[in-house]
């Protein structure tokens, strides 16, 4: 069997591991435009702060990569998929045949279309190379502007501020992290990050980047006419799935590639996983991309298993995230912002150490469909697990809103179902 994987991110890596776990004989080829071993994309932001070094970027030790027995074609783009003859074509014309093909091409940062956007010092952050370019620019940077307050924008801002750079985050919406959390929670985070030196300007836009060819960006202009001096601009306005190969090959796409629960495309020998796809959203009941790491990893694993002959289906996916700003931790998941048609309940207070806490739970009827935990995050994962359950939990809302919510607050029946029961005979044998 010939397995070919386009891309070398987490979706690709998990797929390769999943294939190898089931098929030790088949050949696996991984092709990627980037010339690095599979590395952690989120850590590109940590690199900026110096919280990790280059050695920590690869996702596995080299012995683990070797054990996968994969032929890597790194630093080379795939230009074409020929579904008829089941070949892919690499730049330079080389062809590779496949029996099963996986597209794990990820996404690329959305460009901003304003004057000056191509000046030196206007950066995006997606790749290891991007962070190297930013690090270079940082040597002459005193002030920076981050456009967009999502997790890429905010984690860049956090890194820059921790290096003592004067950072302003400019967001068009009324708050930072607007896709992740409601206004009340975002305000808690905002006042905390402002204390730590990140300035947030909401409900405004950067309309122009000012600078010269010689030295690059020197300022940005906002919609209200304000001018902010800066030597670096990081654009974090979301990502778009990389679809060119899929579209050219006639694979069905909406905003991203359409796949079924087994990660199959409309071609039975071609699978897709990760940021380039639009999998089934468990909470919205339709195909929708969340473009997050855990989903990419999980999808890759399912795709790989099925390519090697298994028959796994995913129930569905949804967005979730975890952030930490100098000790203020945030975990949010599902339809965390609530909105029309949902019931949002919240509570807040101060922890023993003086840090604020905030919780929100969102119900669709009696089902938990979203949550935000700021501060006391230790058992927030339980709420995430309950979102998947889709059972009546409305009567637990008060408990969920209280820090310290744990397994013992669940109805016994549900807890037992989650934890499993043990055959009493097995007990006698093992004790």
């Amino acid at each position, binding site marked *: 069997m010939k397995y070919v994987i386009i891309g070398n991110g987490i979706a690709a890596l998990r797929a390769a591991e999943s294939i190898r776990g089931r098929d030790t004989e088949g050949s696996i080829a991984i092709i990627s435009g980037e010339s690095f071993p599979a590395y*952690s994309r*989120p*850590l590109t932001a940590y690199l900026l702060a110096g919280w*990790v070094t280059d050695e*920590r970027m*690869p*996702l596995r030790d080299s012995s683990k990569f070797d054990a996968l027995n994969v032929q890597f074609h790194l630093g080379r783009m795939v230009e074409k998929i020929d579904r008829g003859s089941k070949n892919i074509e690499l730049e330079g014309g080389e062809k590779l045949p496949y029996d099963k093909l996986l597209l794990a091409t990820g996404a690329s940062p959305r460009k901003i279309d304003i004057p000056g956007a191509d000046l030196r010092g206007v950066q995006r952050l997606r790749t290891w190379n991007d962070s190297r370019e930013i690090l270079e620019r940082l040597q002459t940077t005193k002030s920076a502007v981050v456009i967009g307050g999502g997790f890429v924008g905010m984690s860049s801002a956090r890194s820059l501020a921790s290096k003592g750079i004067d950072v302003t985050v400019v967001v068009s919406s009324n708050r930072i992290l607007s896709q992740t959390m409601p206004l009340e929670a975002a305000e808690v985070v905002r006042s905390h990050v402002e204390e730590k030196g990140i300035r947030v300007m909401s409900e405004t836009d950067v309309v122009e980047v000012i600078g010269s060819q010689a030295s690059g960006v020197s300022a940005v202009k906002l919609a209200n006419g304000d001018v902010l001096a800066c030597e670096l601009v990081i654009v974090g306005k979301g990502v778009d799935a990389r679809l060119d190969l899929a579209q050219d090959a006639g694979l*069905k796409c909406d905003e991203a590639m*359409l796949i*079924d*629960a*087994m990660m199959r495309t*409309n071609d039975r020998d071609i699978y897709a996983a990760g940021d380039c796809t639009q999998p*089934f959203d468990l909470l919205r009941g339709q*195909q929708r991309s969340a473009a997050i*790491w*855990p989903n990419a*990893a*999980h999808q890759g*694993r399912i795709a790989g298993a099925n390519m090697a002959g298994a*028959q*796994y*289906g*995913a*129930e569905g996916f949804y967005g*979730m995230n*975890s952030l*930490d700003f100098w*000790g203020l*931790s945030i*975990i949010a*998941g599902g339809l965390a912002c609530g909105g029309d048609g949902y019931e949002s309940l919240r509570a807040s207070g101060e922890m023993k150490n003086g840090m604020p806490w905030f919780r929100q739970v969102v119900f669709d009827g009696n089902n938990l469909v979203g949550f935000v935990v700021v501060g006391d*995050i*230790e*058992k*927030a*994962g*339980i709420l*995430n*697990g*309950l979102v*998947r359950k889709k059972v009546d939990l409305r009567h637990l809302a008060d408990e969920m809103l209280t820090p310290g919510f*744990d*397994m*013992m*607050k669940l109805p*016994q029946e549900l*807890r037992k*179902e*989650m*934890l*499993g*029961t*043990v*055959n009493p005979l*097995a*007990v006698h*044998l*093992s*004790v």
Partner: protein
Amino acid sequence: MKRVFAREEYCIACRLCEVWCGIEHSPSRKAYKYRQENPVSLIEVQFDKEVGNSIAMQCRHCEDAPCIDACIVGALLKDDEGRTEYNKDRCVGCWMCIMSCPYGVIKPLKEDKKIAKCDLCPHLDTPACVSHCPTAALIHTETEEGYLHEPTVADHVVDNDSLFTEG
């Protein structure tokens, strides 16, 4: 693979599991001095004050572990036997595993930007919490016996062909 199961009917909330876990994971592994060494207990007794029940919770080493998918640095991986193994050196304290654990059994060590979770005492035949549980509320047993699979991957084919029809 053998895992640890907790039976709340038998738990008397003595918290000896926490104590012995702490001892086992302290540098000296000595009961008389482990407290000075400040070890983290990787098991936690939780209470239902109204009913009077309690249960000891720890990493369940899920077969289909969501924390492994969520980990952005490759610090959580399955070992050859099926344990979910934690590599502290890789961990950056992003709390993605905490977000994804449906049992809430991974502890954030905020100061260190690391986590702590049960390792099943790999150098012991029976984990310390189990061998010191006076009521056999904790048992160490093969997973086939009643172990429920994680619900995230269903062992069945889901065919969404309708998604791909024209129009």
